[in-house]
């Protein structure tokens, strides 16, 4: 094919719309007669509801309805769907649309107010009176895991939702025989994805046509459609869920059947007026899922050369009050931990624990940051203890390029498939990284800084990232008589540039201009079979479906054009929006003409065409995930007097196979790094002992600004994946995954004189000074 869009840094198709303020986010959806909703949310972490008084609220002028659990039909009054079951998830507890008897976290919705404006709805909230019997709350993760802790769910004997073990080889034997064993405890604390756009739902019911239309700031519109159909008793064909422009997803918007996603559509049906609910920022902090809190006890067994004999970790995962989404995060932690290293004996064991806090579900990284933090910290520990260079000890343990596909010995990944790395070149990624950051002469550089009174550290962290998992995604491509190509896919977009990257794939296949390819995503009415955008899979899974459909349309185009041009298919080329005979550019026909010819008004169409039009629908169902990898390195300066840190340089070398649009990829990496820096030094959700969330605004939950995020230098290695036609791997989470490990590594290096060993995230200037002081006063580590 002469034109190549794949691999080019093409400016995005969607930008003009977004730049001119013509995007349509859920709050921009305006329907005649819309009413506005607000929720009365629990002020307590754990309480029994004794009485709800709504009469005063109902009487406020402008209030149309005040709904509590008892008003809901039975089908949506009880626990909402279990999303991803797992045999280990014995207690798969889920949230309800409106709490009627018990509330289990601050922010849980109890009453729904619908009014003429959000202002009035909020006024009405203040007129609702709820009588509670406050119950003891299980807040601290370790305390909640112990027998005798206040039970989040009264019908359970304790707070353990699941206990799950994954093993490879024989760790007991390995540890028993090992010359060296090092133990450490690692903690990563709660965080929020905090997209700039909070969640929101607009629902409209047409009682004449029996059609429900829902605009939802979700990463999974098709599945929401399916759940709504089931819960509200409507045919799927009568429900349309549209994920319009979305101001950032990052994971928590893949959670399905949030209470509001169910109660708002139901309210629209009952009131027969459109209902809009837009989450405000304070609500978002308590009502949209969190993640990140896990405590790992880990140990590594090595021989005298630092070669890994075994790794073992037991950890606690904080589910929050429910675990509708299931065990994805802790499973991913356990299966990401091995990383790029050969670990013959492995044991990952966790307990998923209920607490009286907001529910958790995957947030960019989804457990991988924890796995990487543990493993990379252990490797640095081995290096330090055995006096081996930190880079060398890793090289000695890398899986080598010729050893793929590499089976991890029986671990099962989040997709239920045996964990096997498909391809990669870890030594090359590592070499490039160290080269870029100047590792070879770092010792001299560091000494130079030291003489100037500056404490600078070099850190690096390596990760292997499972991407592109199934079950499947789909795509339908149609060439219209105008010559423009319309692509409908099953995933949604939250800024990843699908409108452009998918168009690049299609433009290549059909020889058109990328601007003539119009992509629709996230609309169950446009495409009805799909899973959603999560786990770094959209480009891989949907992208390949796009490629397959584009290939099919290409074939059809050639077939039909061959008839038109009275030529053989093999003699035809597609380029510049035309089909022409190779070597005879004059003998050509426009793509649009071919499309028209494929749909004649009369006559006969050949059997081989298998139907009219230039259109094809294809699905891609990967057999397993494709494994990307990468390494981050940075120079970090510490002001030991104030505990403030500064990035002097930041380097990423990333391998996600062939890259569709390098500009988009780098943007994804840089955005991820910024969130990772947030996870390392700024962002912490703080609960007090009563389960009150103390960080409910952007004044207390600190997102990095331009001043806190360095320029990131990005380089690539490409090891294609054999698992899909395009050979690509996912990249959406790559930026965030190793950052906490990297920052810890850099700080250990900067503060090596004091023997600092960072084992917790996030830090803060205050905490860093504490750690420094503890290290200075501690006896010399053994």
């Amino acid at each position: 094919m002469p034109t190549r869009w794949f691999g080019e840094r093409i400016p995005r198709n969607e930008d003009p719309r977004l730049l001119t303020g013509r995007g349509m986010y859920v709050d921009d959806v305006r329907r005649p007669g819309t009413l506005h909703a607000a929720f009365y949310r629990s002020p307590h972490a754990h309480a029994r509801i004794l009485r709800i008084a709504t009469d005063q609220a109902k009487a406020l002028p402008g209030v149309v309805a005040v709904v509590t659990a008892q008003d809901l039909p039975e089908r949506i009054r009880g626990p909402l769907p279990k999303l991803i079951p797992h045999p280990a998830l014995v207690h798969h507890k889920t949230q309800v649309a409106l709490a009627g008897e018990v509330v289990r976290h601050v922010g849980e919705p109890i009453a729904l107010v619908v009014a003429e404006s959000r202002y009035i709805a909020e006024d009405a909230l203040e007129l609702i009176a709820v009588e509670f019997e406050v119950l003891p709350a299980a807040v601290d993760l370790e305390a909640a895991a112990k027998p005798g802790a206040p039970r989040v769910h009264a019908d359970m004997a304790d707070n353990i939702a699941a206990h799950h073990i994954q093993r490879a080889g024989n760790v007991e034997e390995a540890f028993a025989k090992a010359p060296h064993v090092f133990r450490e405890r690692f903690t990563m604390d709660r965080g929020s994805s905090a997209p700039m756009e909070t969640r929101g739902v607009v629902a409209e019911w047409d009682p004449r046509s029996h059609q429900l239309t829902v605009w939802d700031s979700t990463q999974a519109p098709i599945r929401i459609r399916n759940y709504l159909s089931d819960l509200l008793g409507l045919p799927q064909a009568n429900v349309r869920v549209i994920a319009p422009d979305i101001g950032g997803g990052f994971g928590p918007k893949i959670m399905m059947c949030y209470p509001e996603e169910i109660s708002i559509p139901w309210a629209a049906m009952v009131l027969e007026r459109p209902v809009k609910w837009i989450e405000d920022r304070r609500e978002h902090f308590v009502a949209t899922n969190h993640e990140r809190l896990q405590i790992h006890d880990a140990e590594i067994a090595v021989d005298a050369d630092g070669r890994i004999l075994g790794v073992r970790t037991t950890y606690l995962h904080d589910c929050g009050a429910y675990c509708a989404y299931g065990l994805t995060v802790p499973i991913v932690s356990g299966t990401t931990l091995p990383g790029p290293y050969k670990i013959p004996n492995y044991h990952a064991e966790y307990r998923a624990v209920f607490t009286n806090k907001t529910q958790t579900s995957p947030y960019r990284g989804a457990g991988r940051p924890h796995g990487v933090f543990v493993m990379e910290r252990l490797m640095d520990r081995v290096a330090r203890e055995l006096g081996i260079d930190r880079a060398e000890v890793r090289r000695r343990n890398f899986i080598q390029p010729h050893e793929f596909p590499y089976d991890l010995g029986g671990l099962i990944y989040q997709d239920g498939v045996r964990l096997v790395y498909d391809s990669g070149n870890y030594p090359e990624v590592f070499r490039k990284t160290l080269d870029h950051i100047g590792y070879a002469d770092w010792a001299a550089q560091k000494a130079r800084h030291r003489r100037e009174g500056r404490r600078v550290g070099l850190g690096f962290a390596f990760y292997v990232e499972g991407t592109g998992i199934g079950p499947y995604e789909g795509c339908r491509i149609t060439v219209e008589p105008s010559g423009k190509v319309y692509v409908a896919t099953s995933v949604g977009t939250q800024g990843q540039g699908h409108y452009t990257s998918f168009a690049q794939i299609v433009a290549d296949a059909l020889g058109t201009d990328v601007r003539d390819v119009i992509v629709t995503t996230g609309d169950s009415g446009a495409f009805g079979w799909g899973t959603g955008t999560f786990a770094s899979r959209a480009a891989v899974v949907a992208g390949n479906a796009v490629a397959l459909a584009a290939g099919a349309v290409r074939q059809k185009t050639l077939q039909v054009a061959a008839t038109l041009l009275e030529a053989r298919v093999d003699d035809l080329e597609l380029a510049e929006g035309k089909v022409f005979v190779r070597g005879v550019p004059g003998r050509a026909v426009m793509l649009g003409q071919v499309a028209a010819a494929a749909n004649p008004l009369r006559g006969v169409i050949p059997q081989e065409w298998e139907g009219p039009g230039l259109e094809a629908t294809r699905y891609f169902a990967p057999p397993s995930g494709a494994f990307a990898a990468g390494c981050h390195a940075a120079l970090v300066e510490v002001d030991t007097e104030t505990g403030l840190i500064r990035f002097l340089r930041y380097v990423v070398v990333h391998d996600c196979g062939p890259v569709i649009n390098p500009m988009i990829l780098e943007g994804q990496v840089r955005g991820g790094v910024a969130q990772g820096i947030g996870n390392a030094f700024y962002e912490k959700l703080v609960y007090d002992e009563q389960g009150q969330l103390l960080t409910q605004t952007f004044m207390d939950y600190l997102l990095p600004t331009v001043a806190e995020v360095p320029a990131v230098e990005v380089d690539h290695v490409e090891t294609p994946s054999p698992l899909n036609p395009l050979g690509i791997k996912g990249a959406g989470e790559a930026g965030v995954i190793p950052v906490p490990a990297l920052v810890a590594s850099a700080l250990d290096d900067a503060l090596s004189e004091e023997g600092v060993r960072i084992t917790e995230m996030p830090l803060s200037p205050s905490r860093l000074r504490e750690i420094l002081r503890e290290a200075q006063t501690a006896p010399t580590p053994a």
Partner: protein
Amino acid sequence: MNGDPAHTTPAQAPARVPARRKRRLREPQSALTIRFTVNGETVERTVEVRKTLADFLREDLGLTGTHLGCEHGVCGACTVLLNGEPVRSCLLFAVQAAGAGIETVESLAPGEGLHPVQAAFREHHGLQCGFCTPGFLMSAVALLRDHAEPTEEQILETLGGHLCRCTGYQGIVEAVRAAARTWQR
């Protein structure tokens, strides 16, 4: 997809007490009729006094390009220009804009094509989901109008008043640097 804007509460009797009658104190009102320009056009509306400028622009005028990210003045997504200066429209009440000139993102490229600052954002990948973008654009436009050759420090200081969760900021910084050069102003 467009319909009528949401209704606000009805206004009370017109507010202003003539200045002559100094003895009578101005009476605080729940609603006022206000007049100001938005994107060059005169607007006159009656509005509840507690309605923020951001909500007014979005709901009463249908200018949904200005977004709400936090409603407490930190994220900057709601930034518009008031008499040429960048302000948080979530921290202003619509009635406070009386007599002022407001510019929103919709004013930058009224026809086809993109404003030079917008074009620079596109070229340098200064946006991903686009939600924070209008706020950034307005601050950038104000900065570049005031400074023919803004220093790096001035650029970072201006951009520091905005949060972006998608880009990691690099593309935005590069876009503003580029626009400083390419925008003939």
